[in-house]
C-alpha cells in the first residue's frame, strides 16, 4: 500500500472494428507522497493509456476502463462522479501529455491557456495569475516569456511547446504529476534544467511524480523507483539503483543493453529480437516469452504472477522456481 496513489488490476480496452482489445491488462503499482517513480517500457505497451486511465480521460476515445481500482488518497477515482473528478484533475493530479503539438489548444494564446488553470485552481487574480504564469514559463527555460504569453502554439518550436505543457501542469503545484515523456523534445541542457525543476518541486512541495520516459538516463537521474511495463503489464518494479545494477526481468536486461552510450561507438546497437505480439495473438504464457533468451517451457503456457521479493517485484518464472516446480507437478499429474 502506497500512501498517495494505488493502481490495482487496472484493465483498459479499446474497441476497434467492433472488437474489444485490452491494451492495459491488470496493471498494479503505487506511488508514495513525494516520490518520483519512472515507468519505462516498450513503445505501445500501454504507458500512456495507463496514465489516461488514472485521470479518467478516455472519455472521448473508444476506450474504457474495464476493471481495477485507482485509489488516490484513499478514494477510488473510478467511482467518483465527473464533478468530483474535475476537482482532482489539474489541482491534485496534473498531467503532461506526450504530444505537445496536438495537446495545446491551437487557437488560444499560450498565456491564456496557462492562466486558466491557475485562476481556476489557485484562485489567483488576473494580474497575479499572469505573473505566476510568466514565472512558470521562465522556470521551464522559455526565453522571452512575456512575448510567448501572447503567441500561439504553432509559433513555437517543438521543445517550447513541450515546455509550455510542462509549465501548465506544474503551475498549479499538484500533489501528483504524471509526466508522459516530458523531455523528449528538449535539448539536454534544458532537460537538465527541467529535471532539476521537478526535483525541486518534489523536495519543496512534496509533489510525487510519475515519470514516463524512454530515456534511461533521465530515469537514472531523477527517479527513486522504476516500473517496467511490457505488453500492458508491469513486469518489474525496483528502486533505481537496484534496477540498473541487477535487472531481473530479461526484458529489463535487454532494454538496458540496448542503450547507446556516449563514447562506446559501435556499428550496430543491440536490440531485442522480434516484435511485441499483437493483441490478437497474445501468447498464453508470459507475453515476453517469444522474444526471451531464457524462455522455458512454462513460460509459453502460463503467465507468471507479479511477485514481490523484498522491495522489488517481478513477473518472471526465472525467479519463481518454487512455484514453477509446483505448477509443473500439477501439470504433469
Amino acid at each position: 500500500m502506497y500512501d498517495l496513489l494505488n493502481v490495482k488490476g487496472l484493465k483498459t480496452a479499446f474497441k476497434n472494428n467492433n472488437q474489444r482489445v485490452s491494451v492495459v491488462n491488470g496493471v498494479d503499482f503505487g506511488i508514495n507522497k513525494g516520490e518520483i517513480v519512472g515507468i519505462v517500457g516498450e513503445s505501445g505497451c500501454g504507458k500512456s493509456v495507463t496514465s489516461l486511465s488514472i485521470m479518467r480521460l478516455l472519455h472521448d476515445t473508444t476506450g474504457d476502463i474495464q476493471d481495477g481500482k485507482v485509489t488516490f488518497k484513499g478514494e477510488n477515482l473510478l467511482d467518483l462522479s465527473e464533478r468530483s473528478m474535475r476537482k482532482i484533475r489539474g489541482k491534485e493530479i496534473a498531467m503532461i501529455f506526450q504530444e505537445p503539438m496536438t495537446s495545446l489548444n491551437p487557437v488560444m494564446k499560450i498565456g491564456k491557456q496557462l492562466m486558466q488553470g491557475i485562476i481556476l485552481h489557485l484562485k489567483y487574480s488576473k494580474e497575479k495569475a499572469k505573473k505566476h504564469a510568466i514565472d512558470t514559463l521562465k522556470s521551464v527555460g522559455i526565453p522571452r516569456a512575456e512575448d510567448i504569453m501572447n503567441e500561439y502554439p504553432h509559433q513555437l518550436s517543438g521543445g517550447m511547446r513541450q515546455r509550455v505543457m510542462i509549465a501548465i501542469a506544474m503551475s498549479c503545484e499538484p500533489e501528483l504529476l504524471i509526466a508522459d515523456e516530458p523531455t523528449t523534445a528538449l535539448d539536454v541542457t534544458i532537460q537538465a534544467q527541467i529535471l532539476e525543476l521537478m526535483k525541486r518541486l518534489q523536495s519543496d512541495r512534496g509533489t510525487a511524480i510519475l515519470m514516463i520516459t524512454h530515456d534511461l538516463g533521465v530515469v537514472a537521474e531523477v527517479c527513486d523507483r522504476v516500473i517496467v511495463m511490457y505488453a500492458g503489464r508491469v513486469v518489474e518494479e525496483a528502486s533505481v539503483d537496484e534496477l540498473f545494477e541487477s535487472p531481473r526481468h530479461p526484458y529489463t536486461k535487454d532494454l538496458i543493453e540496448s542503450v547507446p552510450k556516449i563514447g562506446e561507438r559501435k556499428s550496430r546497437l543491440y536490440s531485442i529480437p522480434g516484435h511485441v505480439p499483437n493483441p490478437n495473438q497474445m501468447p498464453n504464457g508470459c507475453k515476453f516469452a517469444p522474444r526471451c533468451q531464457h524462455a522455458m517451457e512454462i513460460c509459453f503456457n502460463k503467465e507468471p504472477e507479479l511477485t514481490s521479493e523484498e522491495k522489488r517485484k517481478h513477473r518472471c518464472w526465472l525467479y519463481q522456481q518454487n512455484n514453477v516446480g509446483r505448477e509443473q507437478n500439477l501439470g504433469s499429474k
Partner: protein
Amino acid sequence: MAEIVTKTDYMPKSRGKLRSFCAAFIHKKTAVASFFFFCLLIILALIGPSIVPYNPQTPDYNHVLQGPSWLHLAGTDEYGRDVFSRLIVGTRLSLGVGISSVLLGAVAGTILGLISGYFGKWVDKTIMRICDVFFAFPDILLAIGIIAILGPGLQNVVIAVAIFNIPSFARVVRGKTLEVKEMLFIEATRSIGATKSRIIFKHVFPETFSTIIVYLTMNLGTAILAAASLSFLGLGASPSSSDWGAMLSMSRDYMGTAFHLVFFPGLIIFLTVLSLNIMGDGLRDVLDPKSKD
C-alpha cells in the same frame, strides 16, 4: 534484418470498404430509420403515379378545399384534387429537382471553394469576388436571365437553383479549407511530393466533408422551395404540376381557411429534410475515424 524473426502474416479480416461502412451505419438506429424513409420516398418517386388513389390532376369542383377524411387522407385542394395523391406524385419532381440541384451546386461549389481556399492569392480573390457579385444578384433576376438565355424547362430550374447554391458552397468550403490547409499533416503530405490536386481532393476535401454534408442536407428544403418559386417565375414546371414546393406556395392564401393545404406539403418537406439530416449525421459519424461506436 535478421533479428526480425516473427514475421506475422496475420491480417484482421479486412472487410471491404463498403461492407464495413454499412456495418457501421447499421448501428445507428435513427439513421437507418431515416434511410428507410428515404428509400420509401425513392420508391414513391419511381412508382408513385401508378399507386395513387386518385388522379392527381383530375378536378372535382364539388369537393373543393375539404379537410382530411378517410376518402381524402390529406384533404382536397381548391380544385377538389386529392392532396395525398398529389403529394405522392410530386415526390419525383420535388426530390429530383431538389436533390439534383443541390448536388450540382454542392459539387461545383465545393470544387471552387477548395481551389479558392487552397491556392489563395489571386485565385482566391477572383473566385470570391465573383461569388460576392453572385450573392448580390437576387434569384428572380438570375431566373429571368436564365429564361432569357436557356429558355424555360425543368433542367434549367435545376441549373438555376444549382447556380444559387454554388457561391454559398464555395464560401463555406473555402472557409474550412483555409483552416485545414494550415494543418501539419497537409505540410507532411506536401513533403512527400503530393500534387496539389491530390492534396486538395484526397486530404483537404475529406476534412471539409462533414461541413459539406451539413450544408447539403440543410439546403435541400430550401432548394425544393426555391425550385417552386422559380416555377412561379415561369422557369420550370407548370404551375399545375404537383410539386411540393409549388403546392405549399400556392396554398399561402388558404392559411387561415384550409390549413391542411399548407400543412401536408410542409410536413413532407420537413420529414424529407429531417431524414436527410439524420442520415447526414449518421454518415458523418461513420466516416469519422474517431467515432465511438
